[in-house]
């Protein structure tokens, strides 16, 4: 019995060799990094800008101020380590809201900055990643004294609403999405672009397109929505169409989008059909026509389908121009016709040109709102 107890205790003590209180840090002693920006300096170094929280105790609750620290290093991790020049270096990155890549750095190969994000478990996989126009540190350095939230938190809030409530201006990319895009064959990675407007507010500015490890181009807002429609990612948007008489402007609200790829092959020619089912509702009408007539509704449906097709086609043109597969067509060929993909994959960016893309859109207007006709003065 005694032997057993001693044995059990020894086994138990061994556990302390595995882990221990060496990485125990009180939360109040930690520096909370809330946002990080990465820039590429002229001398080829990585410049890291961290927005840190400085919460302070109040009579009731707390108040938060933020400040930014900028350090340089040959690599990201060296820069992070160099933070110890100015801080005690007890950072927690668990609350990092956003990673911003500066314009200059984005033109460099990605492998010089993304490795550490993925390698360490300190950064959450669901952190937002963006590319900035101009230096990334300028975006974090904006003073926002009136707000309790930090600049990084505000960017995160801006990104958070984009998928479910946005208008297709941009798309939210989390760290894990970026890596999965980068690792997928026949799929170009995209990242949202943010910029500072004249009032020093953060604004969305389309998507950046990756090819061969670097950013090669941008999609404007029309092309962005085309991309989201083609890939079936759009959840919320409004479309402006003219009615049959061309006098009334009707705003249609997207209610639901179903998307399906179809890959066909004939005599070595590959055709990809994107099938879309769009459900929408009338949200606004400028004019007094009775648009609830059947021919009017049919017309509106037709106009919406044309609009969607046109938007997707602009993206398609851009894709061919950039030779970057933002519509993820290669991935679909790989999925549905893997043998053909084996032939195409070698020189896929060039082979994009050989693909025929056709779009089939079925539209359906479901509701017209609480009124059937616009209100007009009768006197």
């Amino acid at each position, binding site marked *: 019995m005694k032997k057993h107890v001693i044995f059990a205790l020894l086994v138990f003590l061994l556990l302390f060799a595995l882990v221990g209180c060496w990485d125990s*840090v*009180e939360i109040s002693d930690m520096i909370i990094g809330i946002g990080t920006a990465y820039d590429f300096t002229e001398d080829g170094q990585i410049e890291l800008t961290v927005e840190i929280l400085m*919460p302070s105790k109040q009579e009731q609750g707390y108040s938060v101020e933020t400040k930014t620290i900028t350090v340089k290093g040959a690599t990201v991790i060296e820069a992070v380590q160099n933070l110890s020049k100015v801080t005690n270096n007890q950072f927690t990155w668990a609350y990092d809201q956003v990673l911003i890549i500066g314009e200059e750095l984005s033109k460099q190969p990605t492998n010089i900055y993304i490795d550490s994000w993925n390698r360490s478990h300190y950064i959450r996989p669901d952190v937002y990643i963006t590319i900035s126009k101009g230096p990334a540190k300028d975006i974090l350095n904006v003073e926002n004294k009136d707000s309790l939230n930090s600049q990084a938190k505000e960017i995160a809030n801006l990104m958070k609403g984009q998928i479910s409530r946005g208008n297709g201006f941009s798309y939210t990319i989390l760290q894990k999405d970026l890596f999965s895009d980068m690792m997928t064959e026949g799929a170009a990675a995209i990242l949202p672009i943010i910029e500072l407007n004249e009032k020093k507010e953060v604004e969305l500015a389309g998507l950046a397109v990756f090819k061969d490890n670097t950013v090669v181009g941008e999609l404007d807002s029309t092309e962005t929505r085309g991309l989201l429609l083609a890939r079936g990612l759009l959840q919320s948007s409004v479309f402006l169409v003219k009615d049959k008489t061309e006098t009334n402007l009707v705003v249609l609200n997207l209610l639901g989008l179903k998307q399906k790829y179809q890959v066909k092959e004939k005599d070595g020619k590959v055709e990809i059909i994107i099938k879309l089912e769009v459900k929408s509702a009338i949200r606004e009408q400028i004019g007094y026509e009775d648009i609830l007539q059947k021919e009017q509704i049919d017309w509106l449906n037709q106009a919406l389908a044309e609009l969607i097709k046109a938007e997707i086609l602009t993206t398609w043109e851009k894709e061919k121009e950039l030779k970057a597969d933002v519509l993820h067509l290669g991935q679909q060929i790989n999925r549905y016709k893997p043998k053909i993909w084996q032939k195409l994959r070698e020189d896929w960016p060039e082979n994009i040109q050989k693909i025929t893309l056709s779009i089939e859109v079925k539209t359906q207007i479901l509701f017209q709102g609480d009124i059937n006709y616009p209100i007009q003065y009768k006197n």
Partner: protein
Amino acid sequence: MGNTHSLDITGTLTEDLAENLAKINAIMGKNNEMIQREIIIGGKYGQTACFLYLDGLIDKRTISDFILKPLQNIAVDEEKITLENISKSFISTVEIEEAAELKVIINRLINGFTVLLLEGNAEALLIETRGWEKRSITEPSTEVVVRGPREGFVENLQTNIALLRRKLKHPDFTLERFVVGRYTQTNVAVVYLRSLADPNVVKEVKKRIEKIDIDGIFESGYIEQLIEDNPYSVFATVGNSEKPDKVAAKMLEGRVAIMVDGSPIVLTVPLLFVETMQSSEDYYSRPYYAAFVRLIRYISLFVSVWGPGIYVAIICFHQELLPYELSLTISTADINTPFNAVLGIFILGIIYEILREAGVRLPRPAGEAVSIVGALVIGQTAVAAGIISAPVVIVVAGTAIASFVTNPLTDSGTMYRIIFLILAGVLGGFGILIGSMFFFGHLLSLKSFGVPYLAPILPTYSLRDTIVRFPLWMLDKRPTYLATSGSKHRQAKNQKPAKEAKT
């Protein structure tokens, strides 16, 4: 009456009264409360008789009215007066016996009997004249119920047996008596329902009680500690209650009750883990809320045992588990407090235990003062002065309240809470996992009088009365792991209240 501890006395009476008295006096010693009174009964053949009793244990009116008066009024008679005709014709108390052995006589004497010795008789009459001050039946303060019987056990064994008997009016009600304690000669009763209780458990209980050989038994807690299965375990494997209805219900599930004279706490064995989560009120109120409250108790147990440990593990090791805003709240509250989280919780926990102990021990008015000082001074001022952070106070206070919900586990829960706190402080979440492994492994290894402690969860039997309580008419099966004999069904099949037939 099974005499576990018979007194170490030998010898019998003789026909000589003076010699008999000398013998008894020699055993009892001079300086005691024993009263001797000599009378002469029957004028013509006047015989000397002598009463012996211990002052304070007897009811003087019983002696004077039912023994003394009839005896002195015996008319002059031809016949010689014998003990037999005294007991049959004159003494009008209920319990009366004859004995010759000094052992029995002394035993009865110290239990409040009156001993009547008669000249020329080698036997004594032992007349039951017990009477002493006792507490009346009141509502027990430990197990307060909103709905349910208010009566509780008292210190008197006979009263307690009567209370229980009134709940279980059935000939199967079986009672076996023991005397335990060399000096206290405490009466202990083992009570069970013959047709339900597991004969092996009954046998084991009797065996363990007979084995007890100590100077004194003052409370059922003595018995509990001397008969339990796992003396090194933090968990109790013997249940206790102050409420007759609760004990009776437990006996209906096949448990054995142990009653100790002088203690209002009645023990029940075997004790199961699920029992500690039950309250008699669960069964008296309708099932929905009862089931919800049962669930709340399990949550409270979790909070009271794991609460501080998990808090410390999150604060010191796994900060990323906190939502962003909460992390800010906690980190700002923690700023500038001199102690780290483990120490803070430990100190406050100790202070809380001190306050609790003071509140229990002190007389009630002083206890209130203690709680005010505790709540205001320790709670508010310590936070305001920045000695201890507010979240720590919330955690400690929350755990303390939660630990009272699962009342029978309060003490073992406190022990494990400290273990988990230390493990979390050293190893973080990993430590909590290791601790939990030991915790559940230990619970699984426990047995109470041969029944696994975690039954009916593991090994699995009917789970209708565990984490939630099903309606009464669905609890049709008797817990067969406790009640091995008898029918397996405790109610008829058709107990579900049926809708009134259409007429």
